[in-house]
């Protein structure tokens, strides 16, 4: 049988997955941005990104960034500011903040 997943385990799994996803994204992102040299090609490319599905995906990407960034801060606090003593509270804060920012970004993007 598998080992139960505690709070901290989820924090770690999500951080790792989000970090890897972001790394993949940043590689592609830099590659795509190099397309700025060619204005027409860029504009048509951006048209593709207006597809609703991709817009939603971009929104999701934001949640990944937010979670990783906030949890990265949590790890920093754990390492340098005795955060290990409050890791659970910190993780709760990270999750709550992530959801709020995610919703706020949705508001900016869709309203």
């Amino acid at each position: 049988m598998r080992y139960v997943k505690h709070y901290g385990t989820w924090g770690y799994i999500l951080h790792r997955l989000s970090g890897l996803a972001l790394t993949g994204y940043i590689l592609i992102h830099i590659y795509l941005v190099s397309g700025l040299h060619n204005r027409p090609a860029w504009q048509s490319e951006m048209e593709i990104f207006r597809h609703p599905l991709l817009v939603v995906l971009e929104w999701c990407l934001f949640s990944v960034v937010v979670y990783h960034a906030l949890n990265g801060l949590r790890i920093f606090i754990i390492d340098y500011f005795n955060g290990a003593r409050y890791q659970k509270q910190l993780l709760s804060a990270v999750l709550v903040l992530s959801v709020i920012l995610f919703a706020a970004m949705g508001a900016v993007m869709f309203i």
Partner: protein
Amino acid sequence: MIQVKVKVYRFNPENDQQKPRFETYTVEADPKDKVLDLLHRIKWEQDGTLAFRRSCAHGICGSCAMKINGANMLACEANLKNFKDPTNIIVEPLQSLPIIKDLVVDLKDFFKKYEIVKPYLINKTPPPTKERFQSPEDRQLIDEATWCIQCASCSTSCPSNWKNPNFLGPAALLKSYRYNFDSRDEGTAERIHVLDTNDGVWRCHTIFNCVEACPKDINITWHISQLKKKLVSREY
């Protein structure tokens, strides 16, 4: 009195045809019994071939760590009333270590890692005729780290350790803290370099499984963080 179904992991390497399997026993129990009581009842009344380690029966010797309902804990402290469903208990050996028999795992590697961190006071200055002084504050700094009973619950719950069995693991790191941060110790220079390798302190990704598993409520991760900081400040 309640009826408890105890599902126990069984494996006997002498019996080649036998693959690891689960065997279910039904045991009468008081709702405040510990899982160790159940195992004893199984062994003494139903099946004497069941093997597990235990000695003190009150959480101080560190013999009886095992995986109960999916999480590491001491069988002698695992009170039935703390389980959501006290009538269904699953008992397995500690994960990721070689199994000698049933719930008994091979701890040789675990203790090799313990020895590698030089777990002893190093102080070459000749001692005074009486005690070396240590302020209560300095003593407090290592207090938590001295509670460890070497039960191995932490190291065998650490996902980083499952992936890389060479990782020193939280127990050995905690022990390293215990002596490196002792105000009477002078051995940090010869001790700390074993931590500063790929299989040392850097394989800890603050997952906190170890802290959840520790029966002595030691915040191991906090101690590992202090070691990491010490290593970094040593170099930069």
